[in-house]
């Protein structure tokens, strides 16, 4: 067990290091000088040289990477020359908005999807089950940003029911501003999780201990809620860890569409202004979040499933 | 008569864990000895059987001979050529002269190839493109008694017996001197088992092929083999002519195996000898004579402490065994 844990943690660190190194190498493999891109065509050689020093670009690539990792160990993600602020400040200012969006989205998606999945599993092939099945495939397939633009068109622009853009002021207003973005991010997950719950629920309902309970005359709803659900929910828990990358990706689009602050909007803006310091910082932070989430979900899955636990 | 194959002190090891894990758990021997100093010979046109329970290492011996496994030490010489230190390329010409059939009759045939492709694979592998491959396939099918229109079938469309015949046909494709048959009767109905065995003996008579049979079916051994070797935990515990061993087993384990074998004669008196306990794991080998934990004749003062040397039967110099208290006491310790 400890060896497995150690291995996973080592792997997570290794992946992060490789990821950052790859991004660094890519930046330097690309033709064009980031300083020139930043300063524009009218920059003097002195200005460029000065910026090079400031960005650390005058040193060899390996030295730059080492310096970056040294800073990283002290919680320093680099310095943004453009806004003259540490990258970490910029990122951790935006991160809460994204986390809030992801959290609310997944919360409502799970709240809807789990009962839906249970119902589908109990009434297999009923009309509702079939409708849910088709809707699930459809909502998974349709890109979240298309969903977002249409939601914006219908509920904000045409009907004026909900605010269109921004994150709002205060708790209640913020919540109202979250409705449309959270809908667009979460709708695909409703489909996915309901399918997942349905499949694992059906598997469990066919198992012997459930049939045994049924033969005692325990009601079907009680069986589903008390015996099967705690087991059927497990795949969902583990998939959420892996799904964090997917959630982050859709957050990028949703934040742009609804003009919300957040890490996604930040990256898009940084890419458009060729602000490499912020891009590297954001890629690093999101990669670490993803690696942590997948490692955690792997460990949870491994400790819950006796078959994988034995192999540890 | 010179030996076609001569195996000397063959040892095969398997790793049980990676070097890092071994270091972390403090295991100083992260491997098991699947085969421990096994020696035997096979002569031209002869049939030898390796007999033993599952996990006794008999398949490993075969797989090492044909190059699927590496030997840790010992030698395998084929027609005078040492095989253990050959590279894959250097070994290839010798693979033309020996062939192997596997336990799973259908699983050992490539599932997406037709019988024709399967049978002509050997020719293509060894670059014999000048042959008429279609004709070769029909010739091979005829040799094993299958109709020629089987060429278009896929492995999953064959019965176990038919698939076994196809794998025998493939083994015969390049006119080998030696066929290694790993459990040739596994997974087959009794009537089909008989057909396959008759096929093997017939082909041996016609073509003069040497056969190494790996089996735990003693009826197979009795009917078609000249000599046999009994394996226990990766060692030979008794070797000799089939006749001599069936007539007078020397090792208590052999005695128990023979007693457990159902007799074809309904009037025969059944006196089974039950082996006590389970087969010990090769990871934790018993001390002394490795069979002493299950032996009904074992005496603590010697069997649990001293490994028995190889002894030769007085009546039959080809019959040897490893036991402190052989059943036929007329023996000589060497």
């Amino acid at each position, binding site marked *: 067990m400890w060896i497995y844990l150690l291995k996973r943690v080592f*792997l997570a660190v290794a*992946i992060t290091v*490789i*990821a950052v190194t790859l991004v660094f190498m890519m930046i330097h493999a*690309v033709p064009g000088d980031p300083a020139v891109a930043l300063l524009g065509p009218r920059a003097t050689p002195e200005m460029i040289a000065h910026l090079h020093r400031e960005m650390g670009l005058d040193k060899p690539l390996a030295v730059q990477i080492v310096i970056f990792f040294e800073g990283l160990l002290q919680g320093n993600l680099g310095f943004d020359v453009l806004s003259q602020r540490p990258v970490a400040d910029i990122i951790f200012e935006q991160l809460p908005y994204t986390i809030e969006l992801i959290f609310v989205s997944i919360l409502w998606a799970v709240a809807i999807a789990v009962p839906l999945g249970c119902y589908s599993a109990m009434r297999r092939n009923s009309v509702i089950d079939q409708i849910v099945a*088709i809707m699930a*495939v*459809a909502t998974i*397939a*349709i*890109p979240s*940003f*298309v969903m977002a*633009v*249409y939601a*914006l*068109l219908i509920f904000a*622009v045409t009907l004026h029911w909900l605010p269109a853009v921004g994150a709002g002021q205060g708790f209640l207003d913020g919540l109202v501003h979250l409705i449309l973005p959270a809908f667009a991010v979460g709708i695909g997950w409703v489909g996915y999780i309901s399918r997942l719950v349905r499949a694992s629920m*059906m*598997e469990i309902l*066919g198992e012997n201990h*459930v*049939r045994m309970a*049924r033969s005692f005359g325990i009601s079907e709803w009680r069986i589903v809620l008390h015996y099967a659900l705690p087991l059927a929910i497990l795949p969902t828990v583990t*998939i959420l860890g*892996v799904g*964090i*990358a*997917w959630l*982050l990706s859709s957050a*990028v*689009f949703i934040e742009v569409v609804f003009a919300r602050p957040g890490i996604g909007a930040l*990256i898009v803006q*940084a*890419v458009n202004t*060729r602000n*490499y310091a912020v*891009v590297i910082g954001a*890629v690093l932070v*999101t*990669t670490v*979040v*993803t*690696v942590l989430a*997948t490692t955690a979900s792997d460990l949870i899955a491994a400790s819950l499933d006796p078959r994988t636990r034995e192999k540890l | 008569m010179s030996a076609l194959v001569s195996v000397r002190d063959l040892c095969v090891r398997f790793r049980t864990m990676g070097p890092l894990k071994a270091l972390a758990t403090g295991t100083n021997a992260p491997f098991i000895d699947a085969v421990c100093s096994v020696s035997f010979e096979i002569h031209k046109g002869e049939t030898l059987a390796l007999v033993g329970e599952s996990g006794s290492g008999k398949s490993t011996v075969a797989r090492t001979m044909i190059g699927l496994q590496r030997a840790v030490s010992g030698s395998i010489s084929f027609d005078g050529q040492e095989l253990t230190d050959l590279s894959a390329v250097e070994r*290839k010409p010798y693979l033309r002269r020996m*062939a*192997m059939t*596997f336990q*799973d009759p259908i*699983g*050992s*045939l*490539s599932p*997406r*190839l037709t019988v024709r492709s399967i049978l002509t*694979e*050997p020719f293509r*592998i*060894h670059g014999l493109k000048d042959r008429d491959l279609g004709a070769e396939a029909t010739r091979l099918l005829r040799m094993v008694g299958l109709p020629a229109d089987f060429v278009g079938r896929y492995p999953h469309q064959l019965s176990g017996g038919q698939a076994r015949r196809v794998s025998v046909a493939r083994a015969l494709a390049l006119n080998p001197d030696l066929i290694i048959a790993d459990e040739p009767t596994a997974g087959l109905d009794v009537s089909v088992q008989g057909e396959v065995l008759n096929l093997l003996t017939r082909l041996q008579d016609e073509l003069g092929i040497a056969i190494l049979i790996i089996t735990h079916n003693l009826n197979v051994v009795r009917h078609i083999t000249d000599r046999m070797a009994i394996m226990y935990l990766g060692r030979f515990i008794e070797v000799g002519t089939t006749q001599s061993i069936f007539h007078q087993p020397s090792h208590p384990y052999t005695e128990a195996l023979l007693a457990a074998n159902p007799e074809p004669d309904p009037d025969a008196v059944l006196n089974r000898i039950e082996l006590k306990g389970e087969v010990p794991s090769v990871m934790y080998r018993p001390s002394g004579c490795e069979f002493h934990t299950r032996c009904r004749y074992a005496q603590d003062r010697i069997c649990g402490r001293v490994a028995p040397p190889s002894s030769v039967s007085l009546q039959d110099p080809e019959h040897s065994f490893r036991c402190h208290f052989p059943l036929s006491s007329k023996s000589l310790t060497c």
Partner: protein
Amino acid sequence: MASLEALRGETGPELAPGSFRKTVRQLRKNRLGVLGAALVAIVFASAIFAPIIITHDPTRIMVGPRLADPSLLFLLGTDQLGRDTFSRVMMGGRVPLLVAFASLGSSLAAGLVLGLIAGFGPRWLDNLLLLLFDTIRSFPGIIFALAIIGLLGPSLASMIFVIAITSMPIYARVVRTQTEALRNSEYIAAERTLGAGTMRILAVHVLPNVIGPLLILVSMDVPAVIAVEAGLSFLGLGVRPPTPDWGAILNDGYNYIQQTPWLVVGGGIPIVLATLGFTFLGEALRDMFDPKLRKDL
């Protein structure tokens, strides 16, 4: 009710519905597959025959009506530059399809080769490649794509490159898992005893067994790639204007959403239809050929 459920339990969950219901279910599945195939056919046909179908030059900026509503002259109205939306939508499917096939094709090839090497090669190489796959996989997809495109500059080539790189590890892993399972099978051992070399074993005996599930997996990724392409174009990081592209049209519509809904409709509906069509078709293909293939791998 309870007794009926108990009875179902007896026969196992999958056998429970009667044969009539089973047929209905399969029909529904097939109907979706047929619908998907039809949608895919429409998407392909409109992309291929777009030059014949279109009523206006999709890139010509007209002095006439801007952001016009649909009319007989402009079937889906015009955009902010007076260009005909219908013609742009018809031509706009070419880029997503090109990106999907170019990127998935190259990532299929790369995944196949690397997966075979990982599954059949020495243990250390396997571990090294797995580390590489896991590294690429743990980049949050779109954010990684944004970073690379930001570096390479937005273009068709960088889009194809990014998508190919990010989808490769999944294919490589599937190939590796299958190859490793085959590696220990008896028929591969049998081939070795005949003297077959590794290349021959891979080409003749492993590849045909791996390629089927892989192709189904790839076909199920087509809608995701179309979505990513549209998303990148929506963010202005796809093909350069004035090349028509669904995502770019949707972005124009988003920018002028207060003035007209028609651009959003024209840009978004084709994306929805294409992703739905490829999804239904992919699911039907999987159900038909390989029902056991796991969805999430």
